[in-house]
């Protein structure tokens, strides 16, 4: 018997208790632990290996070393394009979505009639926004013969129909608007955060004669900053992963102007059967998202205000 067991046997029943708890604990978390290893760690190791090979699924992978990575960084204009598109998309869609979310959360945090009903209704786009049903609808809504053009021409704002989805300058915006439209979840999270701000702070501000804007920028925003930070991180990561909408609505067209990163990765992997290359692309994305997330975390001491407990 190993020495530490003998050591513990002095406490008799306690050891049995500990062994029992250890076993029971691992049995209970086994579903998660196994899934974590089988569907996350194993694929990650596979992906790292495959990214160093040429692999088309049908024949076995051939080792090529860093070739895929070198090609990505030196000879792949579509990689650069997709990174640019995704960057623009994330940098506009996330702030827009969060601004809408915060604005409406502030409106809905007031104690008024019907506010509970409004909250529920305003959450609906978030509920269905990621579905294929909404994506196919969106393509027609902004299509040449869609509702937007129909409204703009019949009300005399525009002379003729405009291809919002096919025009290189507006195509990405049709996706950004769709992303901004789904502000429901961050809105609810903001609302929960707003409820946590002590009313006394607002009372003091009112006594000091602060106007609405001063109250908002000096109390609401700083007190809410941990929640803003949380939403910013989650939304940034999520929006980097956008795929369904670009695949269905614009298919990356026109001229790759809406070729978001995951769509490009999908094309490399499944349209051209370059699994090794696609894995390398995935690792590059993981690093990019990691850097962006790290930057947000790094910036947080400058704008996220954590109230130290017991100070007030």
């Amino acid at each position, binding site marked *: 018997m190993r020495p530490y067991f003998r050591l513990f046997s002095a406490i008799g029943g306690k050891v049995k208790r500990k062994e*029992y*708890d250890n076993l*029971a*604990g691992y*049995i*209970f*978390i*086994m*579903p*998660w632990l*196994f*899934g*974590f290893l089988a*569907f*996350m760690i*194993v694929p990650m190791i596979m992906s790292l290996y*495959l990214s160093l090979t040429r692999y088309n699924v049908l024949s076995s992978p051939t080792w090529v070393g860093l070739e895929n990575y070198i090609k990505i960084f030196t000879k792949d204009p579509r990689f650069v394009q997709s990174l640019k598109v995704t960057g623009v998309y994330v940098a506009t869609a996330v702030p827009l979505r969060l601004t809408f979310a915060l604005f409406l959360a502030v409106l809905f945090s007031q104690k008024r009639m*019907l506010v509970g009903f409004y*909250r529920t209704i*305003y959450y*609906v*786009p978030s*509920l*269905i926004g990621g*579905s*294929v*049903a*909404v994506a*196919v609808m*969106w*393509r*027609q*809504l902004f299509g040449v013969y*869609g*509702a937007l*053009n*129909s409204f703009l021409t019949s009300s005399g704002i525009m002379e003729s129909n405009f291809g919002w989805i096919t025009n290189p300058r507006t195509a990405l915006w049709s996706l950004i608007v769709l992303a901004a*439209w789904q502000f429901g979840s961050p809105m*609810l*999270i903001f*609302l929960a955060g707003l409820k946590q701000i002590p009313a006394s702070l607002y009372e003091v501000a009112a006594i000091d004669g602060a106007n609405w804007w001063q109250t908002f920028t000096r109390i609401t925003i700083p007190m809410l900053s941990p*929640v803003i930070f949380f*939403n910013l*991180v*989650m939304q940034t*990561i*999520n929006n*980097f*992963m956008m*795929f369904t909408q670009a*695949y269905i609505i614009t298919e990356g067209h026109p001229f790759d102007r809406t070729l978001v990163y995951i769509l490009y990765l*999908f094309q490399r*992997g*499944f349209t051209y059967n370059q*699994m090794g290359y*696609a894995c390398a692309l995935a690792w590059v*994305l*993981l690093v990019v*998202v990691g850097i962006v*997330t790290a930057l947000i975390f790094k910036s947080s001491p400058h704008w996220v205000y954590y109230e130290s407990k017991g100070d007030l």
Partner: protein
Amino acid sequence: MKTRRIAGSILYHGFILAFGFLMFYPVLWLIASSLKEHSEIFREAHILIPETIRLDNYVQGWRGFGGNTFGLFFKNSFIVSGISTFGQLASASLAAYGFTRVKFYGRKFWFAVMIATLLLPGQVLRIPQYVLFNQLGWIDTYLPLILPHFFAGPFFVFLIAQFIRGIPSELDEAATIDGCGKYAIFFKIILPNIKPPIITAGIFSFYWTWQDFFGPLLYIQTVEKYTAALALQLFSDPNSVTNWGAMFAMAVLSLVPVFIIFITFQRHLVEGISTTGLKG
């Protein structure tokens, strides 16, 4: 003073209703278009009230394609989402209980690892997962869509764990004195008490699997096995002649279960998101 308050109130509700209409317009437009006649859908497209309400689109859409009705696609979706959700709830509540109520070696470490995986962008693992499932011969089966949900997703574990922390541990202690082991405590004390997070987790799990498109797109090849989301996309394939009315009708139908669940359980949903900050 009073008139000012009334004016403020009118402004407030007026703005919210106007903005709400604009925001809700796409959904209304989808429903309206599904009830319009073919020639009417893209003529004066923005008008929400059909000249005559017709259900032809629903009849035509239901017929589906390739000899398969949309009924079959919906059935497939229900099977995939139903089984996945069951697996998710069962495995996640077990894991959540283990993390919160059993003091085992390495508990804090594994919980931290699990939380960290919440930040991992899942899409980057799609390719190796595909390779893995391909080697297992699971392509064109529901296994890649269903099986991973039997291994406790971190979102769900976290959601349920947060709730279990709120259940007084005196209940566990009393049960231990009565001779219950960790397993009996789970089934007798914890499980009957975690209905709220189970409902919330169940709703999210169902939604995500119901609306999942990437998964079926990668793994399902035979038309008979298509889920509704995948069938809907094929329906609107720009390379074929599309019956837009029928497509809109099926799009509306595919959202019906989502709305029904939302209306029934909206309180659970709103509370679930607010308390855990779940779902992007």
